[in-house]
Every structure is written in structure tokens, then in C-alpha cells.
């Protein structure tokens, strides 16, 4: 029971990270109707930017943890958002009205470019960072088994909740959110009514990348490592989360992320950690077969 509780906490934390990445997938799919294959690598870039800016701040003599964290998250969000914007501008916008496979392949190409760019620029070796946020609370203790909730876990979950709140406020209450929802429904009609479609799509990529940057930074803080290859697997799992929740649905993405995080953690805890990715991918296949619209998605009506 204690073991289970501990795994539940770990799973929720991992799920929060997946959920933040999944939002980027689901938003882009909702508006442009394509799988942004490079999104996992944007997450990886976010982790790298966070790592480097952290090192720079420390070498500049800024060591107060809250200030460092705030600055790092701002720098990572801004820079990664620019990466998202650039990727959309270079690889997707010229292909917006091309045939359906073209943006998909260009996205795969972009994913290779990003991951190999960071391999060339920063080396192939795994980058370890010392734990920045330490300490935590012991929730309860039974038969010598301690259930712990560390500070970093609290920070990850709280940050995710805050970001989600801000983000859903933005989608439902602001001009930009309204434009995004309009473009999702009908791009031509939205354009006729004065919505700048290109700008709205760009902003979607920017926001998705900023959220992925936060996810990357939290991954760095939680696991203490980044490497150039982590974007691929994390990207597929986050996409699985988006599909599981129902692609196009924002609460669905978060729900799917939590579900994938829990499944992966519990599978590693009770079965074998080697096959945890197999479990996640099998879930994807099973969900798509039996529930193609996901948990909260709308069924797609096909017309001739």
C-alpha cells in the first residue's frame, strides 16, 4: 500500500511533465491538423536551454534559488518559444496547403535537425546536473517503508496546475484564444472574419513550445539529466497521451498525460522497467483500436 502510494506520487509527477508536452501536440493538431513531430525535440531543446542558462547564472554569481529558477524558466520559455516559431516558419508554413504527407515528412526532418543540432552543438554525452532543489516531507511511515513527497515533486505539480490555469484562461477568455478556437473550426471563415490565421498558428506553436520548455526544465530538475536523444521517446509518449485524452481536447491532453505517467510508473514498479516503453506504446495501439476518439475527444464525422 505504501509502495503503491509512493508510485502514485511518482506517476503523477511524471504525468504532469507528459501532460505539458501533450498540450503542444493537441493544440497544433487541433488547429493545423498535423502531428508536429518536432515537438518532442522542442522539449529537449527546452531542457538544454534551461541547463545552459542555469550554468551561466551560477557563474555570474546569482545563487539565490528562487531567483535562479525564475530567470531560468523565463529564459527557457522565451528561447524555446522562438525555436517553435522558427520551426513553424521554416518547415510548416510553406507547406500549409500542400498535400497531407508533406508537412509530416518535413516535421520528421525537422525533428532530426533539432536533435542532431544539439548533438553537434553540445556533444552526445548525457549532461548531469547536481540536485538544485532538495528536501521534502515524509507523508507517513509504515513497516519501515517511507512515503516521501519531495519539494521538487511539489514544485512540478504546482507549476503544472498554475500553467494549466493560465493557459485555459487564455484559451477561453482572451482574444488570442478566441482566434485559436475560430481557426480550429474553420480557417477560411476565420480569415474572412478578420482573424490573422498565419499569426494565430504561429502563436499556437510559440505557446506549445513555451509549455514544452517548462516541461523540459522540470524534467531537468526532477531527473537531473538531459541528453540530445530524450525528445524522441518523450515526444511519442506525450503524443500517446494526447491521443489517449482525445486529440484536440486540452483537458484530455492533461488527463492522458497523467494516465500515461501512472501506467509507466506502475508498470516499472510492478512488472519490468525494461518493458515500460512497450507498455506505453501498447496502450496507444489499444486505445486507438477500441477508442479512436480518446477519452474526451469528439467523434470525427466523415463526409463524402
Amino acid at each position, binding site marked *: 500500500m505504501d509502495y503503491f502510494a509512493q508510485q502514485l506520487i511518482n506517476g503523477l509527477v511524471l504525468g504532469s511533465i507528459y501532460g505539458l508536452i501533450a498540450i503542444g501536440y493537441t493544440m497544433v493538431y487541433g488547429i493545423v491538423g498535423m502531428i508536429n513531430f518536432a515537438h518532442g525535440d522542442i522539449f529537449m531543446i527546452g531542457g538544454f536551454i534551461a541547463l545552459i542558462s542555469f*550554468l*551561466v547564472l551560477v557563474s555570474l554569481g546569482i545563487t539565490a534559488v528562487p531567483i535562479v529558477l525564475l530567470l531560468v524558466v523565463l529564459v527557457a520559455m522565451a528561447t524555446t518559444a522562438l525555436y517553435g516559431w*522558427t520551426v513553424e516558419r521554416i518547415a510548416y508554413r510553406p507547406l500549409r496547403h500542400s498535400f497531407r*504527407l508533406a508537412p509530416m515528412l518535413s516535421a520528421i526532418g525537422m525533428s532530426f535537425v533539432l536533435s542532431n543540432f544539439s548533438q553537434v552543438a553540445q556533444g552526445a554525452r548525457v549532461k548531469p546536473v*547536481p540536485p538544485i532543489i532538495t528536501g521534502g516531507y515524509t507523508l507517513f511511515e509504515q513497516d519501515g517503508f517511507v512515503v516521501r513527497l519531495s519539494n521538487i515533486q511539489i514544485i512540478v505539480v504546482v507549476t503544472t496546475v498554475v500553467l494549466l490555469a493560465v493557459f485555459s484562461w487564455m484559451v477561453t477568455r482572451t482574444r488570442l484564444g478566441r482566434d485559436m478556437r475560430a481557426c480550429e473550426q474553420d480557417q477560411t471563415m476565420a480569415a474572412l472574419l478578420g482573424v490573422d490565421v498565419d499569426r494565430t498558428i504561429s502563436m499556437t506553436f510559440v505557446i506549445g513550445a513555451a509549455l514544452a520548455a517548462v516541461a523540459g526544465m522540470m524534467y531537468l530538475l526532477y531527473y537531473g539529466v538531459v541528453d540530445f536523444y530524450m525528445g524522441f521517446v518523450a515526444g511519442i509518449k506525450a503524443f500517446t497521451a494526447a491521443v489517449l485524452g482525445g486529440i484536440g481536447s486540452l483537458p484530455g491532453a492533461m488527463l492522458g498525460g497523467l494516465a500515461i505517467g501512472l501506467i509507466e510508473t506502475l508498470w516499472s514498479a510492478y512488472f519490468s522497467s525494461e518493458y515500460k516503453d512497450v507498455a506505453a506504446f501498447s496502450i496507444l495501439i489499444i486505445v486507438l483500436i477500441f477508442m479512436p476518439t480518446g477519452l474526451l475527444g469528439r467523434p470525427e464525422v466523415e463526409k463524402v
Partner: protein
Amino acid sequence: MTDPTLPASKPKRASQLGAAFILKKSLLSAFVALVLFSLMIGIRTDAGPTGQLIHWTRFADLAIMVVLVFAGSILTELFRQWWAARHRALVLPESAKRGLFTLGRLVVPALLIFAFLVPVIFYNQRYMLDLGILVLTYVMLGWGLNIVVGLAGLLDLGYVAFYAVGAYSYALLSTTFGLSFWLCLPLAGILAAFWGMLLGFPVLRLRGDYLAIVTLAFGEIIRLVLLNWQHVTGGPNGISGIPRPSLFGIPLTAGPNGLAAHLGIPFSPTHRLVLLFYIILALALLTNWVTLRLRRLPIGRAWEALREDEIACRALGINTTTTKLTAFAIGAMFGGFAGAFFATRQGFISPESFTFQESALVLAIVVLGGMGSQLGVVLSSLALIGGFELFRGFEQFRMLAFGGAMVLLMIWRPRGLIAHREPSLFLGERTKITSDLVKEGR
């Protein structure tokens, strides 16, 4: 200009052609590059000797990159304007068109004759023979995938799984039971086809991007199982000592039973390369021949109809289940053949050879060649694998360049190099249809 359906036909304003416009645009690009690269290139991190992370600055590299982006941006913009001005005036005279057409008809026989003569021409250049075998392996994989993607219009991102199934089938059957390559080749094909059906069943109802992602997940599952099922597949260490192929039971060894001794010629390791070359050439041509024949059968017509419109297919009484399953199975079978060949050629296989990058490479070959075009697959394999060889010595930049080339080629020619299709049915004269008229598969 708010109509999003007409983005390409934006009228160029006068200011867009001026030097000030180009300068402004390039400065903006340079600024974006500066922000993007300042942390990623300007500062290099690495694990130091004590395991702690150290970092140092590389501002010179950063400056070079920013200047490169600036210059590249100016050149791109100049080229784009020059192209726009020139493109309108480009009208080929009728005689030149006819000449090009005749030349186009000569490409296939010329390539075929060249392929047959490669071992003769390059007999003393082991490197060229190896490269030829590699290119032909990818041509075969491309032709196999073309059945699934190009003909049936089912987007498959996990094709490498069948390649892996074929390779491991042959490796396990030959090292465990001592079966020969020629016996295992059909078995590997059958096993891969079986796995193709196994993948086909669950994904019957899926389309487009969902199908792509499920096939990707399937490919990864196969790779992870191969990696972790240690006592059968050897895990990350792979399987080594896979037997080499023989010619009608005569091994190509230096001993008294070898082929060289039988023919009374001095033994040379090149003999094996030549044999491997002709095996893969035969296998690839078999794939091509079967594909071309299948296109004329009802099943091939059903595949192409399925690619164009699934609902119409069902309305016409085509059984979409069997149509999709046969496409998956036959495509997978050729992948399995190629896998068995790969295993016997390398003599050693490990899960590292069957990553997603391989799937992406084969798919890139098919799509860059022009989906459904058999000749396009050959040309793009030559271009891509040949392009990879240019990066010999700069291995770390290889995938970077491959990704960049994929993006640029998609922007330049989204429909691939050969963007027209031969109709399988025609009235009177065989006219080529441009693929802009063909709906993509769903």
C-alpha cells in the same frame, strides 16, 4: 490577402524587390539566429573530469553561424526573386520537350544495364561494390514500402519492423537450426508477411496520421522487444556469426570445396561481394516486377482505388479489409526478404540497425521519389545514399544534413522528384497524369 487558400499567389509589392527589404529581412533572420544559437552554440557544456558539469564559451563559432545565416538569408532572397522572375518565362519549345521525353524513356534501360554491369566495372573497387549493394538494399526497401504507401496509400512509419523480423528470422533459423540462406529467404518473407497481417488487423479502421503513429509505435515495440528479450535475441549484443550465402550449395570459401576451387580460379573475397550484389539486384527486380504485375490485377487496382477514396471503394463493393491486409502483408514480405539479405550480408545484426531513423529514411526515399513511382525510388535512393557517402568523415553532421535535406526537398517539391504517375488504365493513348490531380492516401 486574407484568403488562406491562395498563399502562393501573393502579389509582390514593389518594396519587396528592393535592397532595403532584403537587408531588413536578413537582419531579422540574423537576429533570430543570434537568439536561437547564443545559448546552444555560444556556450558549450560537458561533464568534467570529476563528473561535474563544466562549460566554456564559443563566441567565435556563434559569430560565424550568425554571419552565415545573414549571408544565407540574403542569397535565398535574391535567388527567390531571380527564380520568380525567370520561372514565368520558362516555356520549353516542342522539340526540346520531345527530346526530354525520349531521354526519359532511355533512363530505365540505361540504369538497368548499368546495374548489371556494376560488378564488372567496379570489380577491383570493393568500396563501390559495397555502396552498390547498400543502394540496392534501399531500392528494394523503397519498392516494398511503395506498395503500402504509394499504391495503397497507407502511411507506414514502422516499416523497419518487418526488415528486423526478416533479419532476425534468418539469423535465428540459421544459427539455431543450421538452415541455409536460400531456404530461410522465403521463410523470412512469410514470417514478415505474417507480422504485417498482425499489424494490419488492428489498424484497419485507422487513417492518416493515426495510422502513421500506430505503425511507428509498432516498429518501436519490435525494436524494444528485440533489445530486451536477451536469451533469444542476444539483446543489445545482437547475433553474430550468421552464415553467408552459398551458390547452389557451393560455399564461397577458400577451401577445396569452395566455388573458386570448383571453377579452377584463384580465390578472392570479391566473389562473395559480386554474388551478394546479384542476389540483391535479383531480389529488388523481383519486387519491382511483382509490383508492376500486381498493379494490373484486380487487387492492385483495388489498392489504388483505396488510396483515392475509401468510401467510394466500399460503395463499389471492394472488400477494404482484405485489400489493406494484402497491401500490408505483401509490403512486409519484401521487407522481410530485404532483412534476410541484410543479415547474411552483414553476418552480424543488432537492434541498433532497426531504429526509427531507418524507417524515416525508407519513407523519405519513397516520398522524395514521388509516391507510387518506381523510378523515383531508384533515383532518390541513389541521391540519398550517395549523399550520405559525401559525409564520410563528418558522421556527426550526417543526420543533421539528412533532416535539413528532407525539409528543403519537401518545400521545393512536395510531390517528390517524379511527380507524375503512369495510369494503369487508359483509353487510346498513354498520357501521364500529374500527381496534383491524384488525391493522397488517407
